[in-house]
């Protein structure tokens, strides 16, 4: 049986090779070749980062693709000694974790109302969410900067250089991004479930928290994870908001490491920081891989 792409690419076949090897290459071998090339492309920058992180000299100019000048963990020590990496890490986790959790909760609440209830203004509400979704929040960065300038004067606790201000801002963008997605998930749950619960005397809040939410929990986790990763990577608004060294997030702080004259010398500790940042996300990614595929095909996006 020929598979659908059996020979969709021209294969360079060595005429002298045996007929069996020839056929093996045409059917399976070239697939491994493509796979290997892809893996090489994926991995070589990562190998470079690992090599830079372990490079005892710690400079960009002395870093090779494969570490030849010995291996040391000095960069990791320097990272914590010379920069506020621990602070940045905590800030990032706090902001991204808080914002991801809150935004999933807020949009799940809204999606429940849109999916299960019929009320005046429902259609208008859904359509305006669709419209707002088209306007990415960061395009209004100038206005946000001016508004938060006023907020900082009035309530310094939620203004610039605080995690709370940035978190509030990210929560503002939540409803537009996730509500439609979540409504789709809720729509796939049979209505009979909540109807029977209502018959048994459950209130609308009980239906939501005790019946529907547990059923969509895996997909909520994936949506939350993607929101978390997107927030960790967010640079534009964080760079405008956070200018004090110890208030920065990883994205803002680590970019600062590679600014100006220190760009060459700091590369080793930067690479060490990159690895430390990546470890948790890579682990979770491999663990949730299967769910992520289904979450992605439902419309979540990452660069």
């Amino acid at each position, binding site marked *: 049986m020929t598979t659908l792409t059996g020979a969709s690419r021209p294969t360079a076949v060595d005429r002298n090779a045996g007929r069996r090897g020839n056929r093996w290459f045409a059917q399976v071998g070239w697939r491994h070749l493509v796979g290997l090339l892809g*893996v090489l492309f994926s991995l070589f920058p990562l190998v470079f980062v690992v090599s830079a992180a372990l490079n005892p000299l710690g400079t960009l100019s002395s870093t090779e693709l494969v570490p030849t000048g010995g291996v040391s963990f000095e960069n990791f020590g320097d990272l914590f000694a010379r920069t506020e990496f621990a602070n940045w890490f905590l800030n990032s986790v706090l902001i991204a974790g808080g914002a991801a959790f809150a935004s999933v909760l807020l949009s799940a609440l809204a999606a429940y109302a849109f999916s299960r209830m019929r009320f005046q203004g429902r259609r208008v509400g859904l359509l305006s969410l669709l419209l707002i979704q088209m306007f990415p929040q960061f395009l*209004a*960065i100038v206005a946000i900067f001016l508004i938060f300038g006023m907020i900082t004067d*009035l309530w310094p606790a939620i203004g610039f250089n605080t995690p709370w201000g940035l978190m509030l801002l990210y929560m*503002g963008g939540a409803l537009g991004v996730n509500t439609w997605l979540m409504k789709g998930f809720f729509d796939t749950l049979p209505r009979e479930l909540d109807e029977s619960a209502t018959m048994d005397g459950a209130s609308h809040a009980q239906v939501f928290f005790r019946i529907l939410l547990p059923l969509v929990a895996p997909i909520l986790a994936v949506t939350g994870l993607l929101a978390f990763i997107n927030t960790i990577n967010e640079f534009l608004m964080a760079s405008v908001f956070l200018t004090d060294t110890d208030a920065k997030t990883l994205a803002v702080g680590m*970019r600062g490491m590679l600014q100006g004259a220190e760009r060459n010398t700091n590369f080793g500790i930067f690479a060490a920081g990159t690895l430390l940042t990546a470890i948790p996300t890579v682990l979770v990614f491999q663990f949730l891989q299967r769910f992520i595929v289904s979450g992605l095909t439902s*419309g979540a996006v990452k660069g």
Partner: protein
Amino acid sequence: MSTPLSGPGSAQQAPGRGPVRTGSPRTSRTARNHAPITVAGLAAKVILLGLVAGIAIWAAFPLVEAEMWVWLAVLVLTTAALFYLYLGRRHIPAKYLVPGTLFLIAFQVVPVLYTASTAFTNFGDGHRGSKDDAIVAIQSSSVKQVPGSAQYPMSVATKGDPATGALVFLITDPQTNTVSVGDARGLRPLDPGAATVAPGGKVTAADGYTVLNVGQASARSKDITDLVVPTAGGALRSSGLSRVYEGKAVRAYDAGCDCVKDSDSGRTWTADGEVGAFVATDGERLAQGWKVNVGLSNFTRVLTDERISGPFLGTLIWNFAFAIGSTGGTFILGMLIALALHSPRMRGTNLYRMLLILPYAMPSFAMLLVWRDMFNTDFGLINNLFGLSVDWFGQDWSARAAVILVQLWLGYPYMFLVATGALQAIPRELTEATSVDGASPWQSFKAVTLPLLLVALSPLLISSFAFNFNNFNAIYLTTEGAPFPADNPSNGATDLLITYTYRLAFGGQAAQFGFAAAISLFIFAIVAVVSAVSFRRTRQQEDVYA
């Protein structure tokens, strides 16, 4: 994405049906009244509402202090409305919609509307405040040291980071030994005892402030020279790093002619309400202007000002090319690898997949910076490996190719994942049927697999396009828009509209918030048109009626 399970008919049985529809209000109302009130639910309600009340009270004090009565009224009304909503038993849909909507309005709708209104003004550096603010700034910046000017000991301090925080002067009056804090808004006395004064009058420490040492202060000498503290008779300016003098203003505003007069040179600048600045007869403008409404001129500037319109068109075309190139490139590469690995005879696909998606799991901001340094001319990996010395970000086309290559690396694992998912969903019978009919693998791919893939993935391709169209990080963390033409440092060859906007507003040169907001609106319009067309094509609107 979503399967509408119920037609409009089943709406009658929806559990939380709002009271607006008058089907059978009596029965449903009683049914709801019988819903039990649980202890946990009641406790959660009390705690959350208590939190709302607490936050509202905390937020009210600064508003009262600043005498912002309108915002206080908004706060009180919002809080009252929240209490009404959650203490009552009606308006059930609203109970679920309001929390998110509040944030949406405060941090997205209001900023968007504010952007729209800013786009019609000349708001920016030199045009920040009202006309009165401009006059104060003109007068205080024209302060000159005259013979007999009083001098005071001064320390430079800040409330924030010594390297970036806003500076203040801590000024000691030698007669009374009292310390005052001075900034651009004026002079305020500091509580006695809050500051430690060294002999000679210099403040060495003050509560809530970080006093800059000599090294930190000299690093910011320009900020210190620029800081002018207005006083009744003129203004205080720094003289060196440890003293201030009280000088007399040379320029003064004359309300009679609505102009500013310079008593040294005798020149006058007349207020021009059209441009929001004081303009001399020879066209010279004073740097300190005020915010005025300029109508559509920010928008027409994009088309008519030659220094802007030429590069702008180039940026627009490149912006589209970048978005299409990134999306198309990642899709093709991801799909090819997915096709290659999609075969029942393949072994080890799980291992391949695990390794292939690694770039997607890495923190993208850090990997963008790594790629930037891999393209470094002198020490970069790419030049090292191939023995080149190409200045990748120095030439238009190599820089453009480089940023697209980086996007390809970051984005193709995602396309690989979704293409794999979509391929698995295509029934094998379809492709088997084509091969029975004698189609070549290429024909069967073209006629069956690709169209089905495109149907499944087109919403993702559209959102990927929209994302890349505004992919700020991809440019700002790699080339920062470079290379720039020699005569135009504000618009580089790899600039996207969004990085260009960012530079206009927050770049090194004078901030042009009004113009930046106009460009933002322009991007809004493009994204909206592209999305509207694509939504129409994918018919996502159908969900609305579900």
